[in-house]
């Protein structure tokens, strides 16, 4: 079913007229209220009135995660705090998160887009949604929650963790829709199997999975094991949260981007040049309705391509391919963003000098695991085993406390970490996804 039939099936011409009007308003508001944008536009010699067509968007400078970080925490907000009703945050490379804000109208827009997303994924009034995305600073849990209520479904705010209890809830409450990260979903399936619970006896029809990279093979496995139809959802807190784009369960062939709220572009991550439909490159977003936290040409670092072909579901909005990778070194581990530089900052604290290190990511029993290999140098070395073990524990504890991700720390000999042209290889991702 299509929740917002007028906007979701709008002919291209009408959609572009709305986009342009909204874009012009967004640019004017950003220029007037966010010193960062005013400065960037002035430097580029562009006035808000220069934006006369959608094509003119290309003349505006990009916004990066570093820009958001430089304006931590509230520097990118385009409204006074009086008008901000919600704050979320995602992790950043220096240990400081990226902070985003929402006005009441932004929360309303988000609920609308999540209602659209859930219905595209197969949900409708009468459904019971088991929402296992984490509730908190992470946008996943609350994003789904508000959309589920807007759509008129019954939402179980179970959040992440306590897996055995989740299985009992699934058995007793009979939810029909599952929302979770794909890796946690496979973990749920394993625990259910250990508990002797068969998904044949549960009532799931559809599942909406995202917040981390996954693959067609994982989709097959999830659909086969959980006996449901699985769709991919995309979003990022800088742009809004979940509900920026969604696959329809009819086609399961690319994610419709809600273009009446977000204008997507694909660029060459190196040169920044625009790419044509169908060509892979870095996804860039401009929000056109966000009030508290508008972003203009925000570089997501996600690699994908756009497909403008009409879809069997009737939606007219352009589809993005499943995200195939990143143009930076960010890792997503159990839904948590991790940059190598974050781990480096923890190691720096130990001795004042960062030793060589490497992050190794594996997927064991469907869950992502992070191992941090640290080369022992003279500053870290001790002749006492217990001191070295305490060092491992201290690094692991700090990573968990600062960045919320569990990591096993393994001390290795100097030069044990492979180097490529003298530069240590910081990330080894062994996940087959």
């Amino acid at each position, binding site marked *: 079913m299509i929740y917002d039939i007028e906007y979701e099936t709008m002919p291209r011409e009408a959609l572009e007229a709305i986009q342009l009007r909204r874009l012009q308003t967004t640019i004017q508001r950003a220029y007037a209220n966010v010193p960062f944008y005013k400065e960037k536009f002035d430097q580029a010699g562009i006035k808000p009135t220069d934006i006369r067509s959608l094509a003119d968007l290309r003349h505006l400078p990009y916004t990066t995660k570093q820009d958001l970080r430089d304006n931590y925490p509230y520097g990118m907000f385009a409204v006074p705090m009086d008008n901000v009703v919600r704050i979320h945050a995602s992790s950043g490379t220096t240990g400081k998160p990226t902070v985003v804000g929402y006005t009441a109208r932004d929360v309303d827009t988000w609920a609308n887009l999540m209602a659209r997303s859930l219905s595209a994924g197969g949900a409708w009034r009468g459904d019971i949604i088991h929402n296992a995305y984490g509730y908190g600073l992470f946008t996943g849990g609350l994003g789904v929650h508000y959309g589920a209520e807007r759509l008129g479904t019954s939402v179980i705010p179970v959040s992440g963790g306590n897996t055995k209890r989740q299985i009992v809830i699934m058995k007793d409450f009979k939810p029909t829709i599952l929302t979770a990260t794909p890796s946690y979903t496979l973990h749920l399936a394993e625990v259910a199997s250990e508990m002797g619970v068969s998904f044949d006896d549960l009532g799931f029809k559809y599942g909406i999975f995202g917040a981390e990279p996954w693959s067609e093979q994982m989709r097959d496995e999830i659909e086969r094991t959980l006996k449901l139809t699985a769709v991919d959802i995309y979003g990022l807190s800088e742009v809004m949260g979940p509900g920026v784009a969604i696959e329809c369960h009819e086609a399961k062939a690319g994610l419709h981007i809600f273009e009446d709220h977000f204008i997507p572009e694909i660029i060459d991550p190196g040169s920044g040049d625009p790419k044509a439909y169908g060509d892979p490159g870095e996804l860039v977003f401009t929000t056109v309705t966000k009030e508290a936290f508008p972003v203009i040409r925000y570089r997501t670092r996600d690699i994908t391509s756009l497909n403008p072909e009409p879809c069997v579901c009737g939606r007219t909005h352009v589809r993005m391919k499943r995200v195939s990778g990143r143009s930076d070194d960010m890792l997503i581990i159990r839904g948590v963003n991790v940059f190598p530089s974050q781990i480096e900052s923890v190691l720096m604290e130990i001795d004042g000098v960062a030793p060589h290190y490497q992050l190794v990511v594996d997927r064991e029993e469907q869950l992502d695991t992070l191992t941090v290999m640290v080369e022992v140098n003279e500053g870290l*070395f001790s*002749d*006492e085993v217990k001191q*070295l073990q305490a060092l491992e524990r201290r690094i692991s504890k700090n990573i968990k406390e600062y960045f919320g991700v569990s990591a096993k720390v*393994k*001390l*290795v*000999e100097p030069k*044990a970490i492979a180097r490529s042209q003298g530069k240590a290889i910081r990330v080894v991702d062994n996940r087959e996804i």
Partner: protein
Amino acid sequence: MHVEQISVFLENKAGRLSEVTSILAENGINIRALSLADTSDFGVLRLIVDNNDKAREVLKNNGFAVGKTEVVAVEVADRPGGLHTTLGIFQQAGINVEYMYAFVQQSGENAVMIFRLDDIGKGVQVLKENGIEVIDGERIYTI
């Protein structure tokens, strides 16, 4: 009165120990005493050799993390209760033994034990007060 010990970080995998012994052998360095402490992932090799500076240099040049620690070498009577007497002295004085190991060779009638203490100065002092001989570095390297 202290003896210098060098220690080397080793990953717990095949061939690492022999890599160290081969480097020392090639450079004509004689191992006087050694102990290896290990976990499932890594080990710490502690060595007393006849030329500490050279051993440290060649091991570092071969990419090992090498540390230097002061330890105490003590002559312990080679008879039942010999070690117990020495440990009793440390215990009474409230000194912790982090680890200890035996010397390869005997010195006359006595065994030689290496102690790593949390308070080495006080350790040496109580040993002397109790009439136990502490062997100095110069002598130990050439036993």
